[in-house]
C-alpha cells in the first residue's frame, strides 16, 4: 500500500517536472513576448518591463528561477493582468469551471446510468430504441454546436434562460447540458451493454428465482457489477469536463479557467501559461488516482497491490 502510493507520488512529480520543462522551452520558442502590441511600446520602456519580469536574463537562468519558485509553490504574477497572482487567477476562475463541471458530472452519471439501465431492462423495445437514439445524438453532436443551438433556441428565441453568464441557478442549465451530452451518451451505451450481459448472468437468475422484486434485483445485484466500466470512465471524464470546457465557456460567457488558458497563450503571459498547464496536469493525474481508488471500492477483487506498475 505505502509502496504503491509512494511510487505513484514519485511518478507524478517526475511527470510534472518533465511537463514544466517542456512547456517552458516550447513557450519561449514562440515568437513574440507579453509586451508586443499594435502600437509598439518604446524600446526603453520594453527593456524596463522585460527586466521587471526577469525576461532579460538568459533563458536557462529564467528556467532555473522558475523551477526554484515552483518548488516553493509560487506560480508568480500574471504579466498581462497587473498585480494579479497566477494562483488567484486559477482559484477564481477554476471555481466557475469546477461548479459547472461537478453539475455536468452528476447529471451525466445519473442520466447516463438511468438511460442505460432502462434501455437494458426494456431491451429491443421502444424505450430502448429511444434511449439509444438519444445516445447516438449525444455522441455525434459536438458540444459547441449543441451549446450554440440551445443558446439560440432557449436563450434567444424562447427566452427561458439567460443567454450568457452564471448569475443564477438556472443559468447552469444550458452549459451543463452542453457539457453533459457526450458523457451521458457514452455512459448510457456503456451501462446498457454491461447490464445486458449481467442480466443474463446466473446469479441474477438466482435472485429472480428467489422471488426478489425486479427493482431490487436491478439496483442491488445487477447495477453494482454493471456500473464497473462506468467507474473506469468517470475518472478521465472528470478530467475532460474540468479541463475541456473552453468552447462551451466562451459561448456562454463563463469566466472559467479554459478562457484564461487560451488567452494566456495569445497574450504570451508566460507565468499564466505555465501555471494553468501545470494545474491541468495535476487535475488529470488526480483524476487517474481517483479512478484507481474507486475501482478498488466498487470491485474488491481488484487490489491495489496487483495493479502495481500496471499504470504510471
Amino acid at each position, binding site marked *: 500500500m505505502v509502496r504503491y502510493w509512494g511510487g505513484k507520488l514519485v511518478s507524478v512529480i517526475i511527470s510534472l517536472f518533465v511537463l514544466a520543462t517542456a512547456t517552458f522551452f516550447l513557450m519561449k520558442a*514562440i*515568437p*513574440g*513576448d507579453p*509586451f*508586443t*502590441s*499594435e*502600437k*509598439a*511600446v*518604446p*524600446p*526603453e*520602456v520594453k*527593456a*524596463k*518591463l522585460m527586466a*521587471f*519580469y526577469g525576461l532579460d536574463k538568459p533563458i536557462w537562468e529564467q528556467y532555473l528561477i522558475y523551477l526554484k519558485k515552483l518548488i516553493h509553490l509560487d506560480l508568480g504574477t500574471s504579466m*498581462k*493582468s*497587473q*498585480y*494579479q497572482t497566477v494562483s*488567484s*487567477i486559477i482559484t*477564481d*476562475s477554476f471555481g*466557475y469551471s469546477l*461548479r459547472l463541471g*461537478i*453539475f455536468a458530472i*452528476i447529471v451525466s452519471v445519473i442520466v447516463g446510468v438511468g438511460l442505460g439501465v432502462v434501455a437494458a431492462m426494456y431491451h429491443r423495445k421502444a424505450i430502448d430504441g429511444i434511449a439509444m437514439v438519444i445516445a447516438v445524438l449525444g455522441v455525434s453532436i459536438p458540444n459547441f454546436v449543441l451549446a*450554440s443551438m440551445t*443558446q*439560440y433556441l432557449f*436563450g*434567444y428565441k424562447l*427566452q427561458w434562460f*439567460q*443567454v*450568457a*453568464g*452564471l*448569475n*443564477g*441557478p438556472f*443559468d*447552469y442549465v444550458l452549459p451543463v447540458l452542453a457539457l453533459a451530452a457526450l458523457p451521458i451518451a457514452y455512459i448510457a451505451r456503456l451501462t446498457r451493454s454491461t447490464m445486458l450481459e449481467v442480466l443474463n448472468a446466473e446469479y441474477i437468475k438466482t435472485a429472480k428465482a428467489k422471488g426478489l422484486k425486479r427493482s431490487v434485483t436491478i*439496483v442491488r445485484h445487477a447495477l453494482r457489477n454493471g456500473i464497473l466500466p462506468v467507474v473506469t470512465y468517470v475518472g478521465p471524464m472528470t478530467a475532460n469536463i474540468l479541463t475541456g470546457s473552453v468552447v462551451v465557456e*466562451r*459561448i*456562454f*460567457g463563463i*469566466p472559467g479557467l479554459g*478562457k484564461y488558458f487560451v*488567452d494566456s497563450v*495569445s497574450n*504570451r503571459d508566460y507565468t499564466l501559461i505555465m501555471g494553468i498547464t501545470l494545474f491541468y496536469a495535476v487535475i488529470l493525474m488526480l483524476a487517474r488516482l481517483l479512478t484507481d481508488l474507486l475501482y478498488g471500492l466498487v470491485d474488491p477483487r481488484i487490489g491495489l497491490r496487483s495493479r502495481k506498475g500496471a499504470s504510471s
Partner: protein
Amino acid sequence: MRKTWLSILALLLVTGVLLAGCGTKNASGPGIFNMNLSSDPPSLDPALAQDSVSFVVLTGLYEGLTRKDAEGNTIPGVAEKWDISGDKKTYTFHLRHDAKWSNGDPVTAHDFEYAWKRVLDPNLNPASPYAYQLYYIKNAQNYNMAADNPDHISDPNQVGVKALDDYTLQVELENPTPYFLSITSFWTLFPVHQSAKSNPAWASKAETMITNGAFKMASWKHGNAIDLVPNENYYAKGEVKLKKVHFYMVNNASTEMMMFHTGQLSFAGFPTGEIPAEQIGKLKEINKDELHIQPTAGTYYYAFNLTKQPFDNLNIRKALTMAIDRQLIVDKVTKGGQVPAYGFVPPSIQGDGQMFREQYPDTGLLSEDIAQAKQLLAQGLKEEGLASFPPVTLTINDGAGHKQVAEALADMWRKNLGIEVQIQTQEWKVFLQNRTSLNYDIARAGWSADYNDPMTFIDMYTSTSGNNDLGFKNPQYDALVKQAYASSDQQQRMQLMDQAEQILVKDNMAILPVYYYSGVYMVQQNVQGLEMDYQGQIDFTRASVQ
C-alpha cells in the same frame, strides 16, 4: 434502501451548497447600464492602462483636468479654467475647489503633479507604456529615459509640472503643442490618489481603488464582472443619472448580440465588443434605430516592405495601390460603414479650424486607374529586371475580417494586373514580430489616433519611430515632422504635415491605404445621453436608462 436515501440526500445537499454560491441575478432595468467588455481590464492604474477595455472603465472612474464634449471640444473637468502663456509653452490650470476623491479627500494640484511624475518615474515598476504621452512636458523625456541617455535628468523637480498651491497647476512644455488640452483628457494623465505610494497593487482590487470620477467601483470580480456605482463625492453628481454600470466580460460576438437582443445588454459592439460583419446588413433593416455607425479616427492599410524586391520599386507599389476598387471593398466585404481611404490621416481628425481632410482632401494623393496601373507594373518590372511578377506573400493576422479583405485584394490584382499573391495568416504576436523585423512582403496594418491631431499619424513614419515597420527612411519627411513639432502656428503645422503625408503616400506610396475605420455599435432605445468622441471612445458618465 436507507443507504440510497442517504446518498440522494447528500447529493441534494451538495447541489444546494453549490447553487448557494452562485450569487444573485443581475437585473437590467431603469438606471442600470449594462455593457460588455470582452475581457478583464489588464490594468485600471491610469499610469499602466493601454487598451480600450481599460480605458472604458477608467472613463467612468476618473476625470482629468479637461473633458471632451460630444463634438470633441475640450471642456473643463477638474480644472475649471486655464491660462496659456504668450509663447504657448506654459499652461496654468486652475482647479475647482469642490472636486473630491471617492473617500472624501479633496482633489488637489499635488495629486496631478504626483500622478504625472509617477508615470514618468524611471523606477516605476512595471514601467508606464504610455509615458510618451507626457513627453510634451519640459524635461519629461529625459527624466523618464534613464538607460543609455547621457541627458538623463535624475531630479524630478526639473520636470515641467508643478503644483503652485493646492488648486493651481503649472505645466511647462518643451514645444508649443496646440493639442495639449486634448491630451489632458487622456487616460494616462488622470490624477492618482496618493495612497498608491504605500500599495503598488492598489488598482487591482475594488476595495483599494480611490477614484475622482463620476463613478466609483463597487465590485470587481476578475474575469467576470465589474460594477460601478455613482461617486457621492463627485462635484457634478447631479448630472450623473445612472444608478449602476454593470460590465460583462463575454468574449464571443454572437453571444454578445443575443445578449443585446434579449435586453441583457444596453450597449453592444465597438469599442470593446464586436458586431459580426455578416449581421450588419440585416441589422440595418431590422434594428435601424438601435444600430449606429460612426468614423473612429483610424486607418486600415497595407504596409509595403520597402527594403525588399519587388516592393523596393516605386512603380510596382503604385501599380498595386492603384489597381484596387476600395468602394467595392467597403460595400461588399467589410459592410460596416467604412470609408475608402486614399490617404493616411482619417477624416475625423481636426486640422486648423476645420477637419484636416476637408482642408487637404485625400483625393489628390492617389487615384484608382487600372490602365495606368498595368503600365506602371510593366515599367516597374522592367526597371527591376524581372520577366514576370515574382511570388509575393501578403501577410495578415488572424482576426475578424482580415482574410476577406486580403482575398478581395488578391482577386482584384489577379483580375486587373494578372498577378498572383499568396495570402498567409499568422497568429497576432508572431505577425507583429515579423512585421517589426521587416520579415514580410506586404502586411496588414492599422493605426488609430492617440490624440486629435494629424501628428498622431504622421510622426509614426519618421526614421527613428518605433512603429515604422516599412523601412521608410526619408530625411525630408523627418525634417518636416521636426518643423511641425517646433511650430506654434496651426496653419503652418497643418501645411507641413500635409507635405509630409504627400511624401509618404503620393510620392513614395510607402503604404497602401484601404479604408478609414468605422465603429459599429448598438444602443437600446431606452438609453439617452451616451457620448462617443471622434475616436469612438464611449463616455457613459452622463447617460441615463429609462
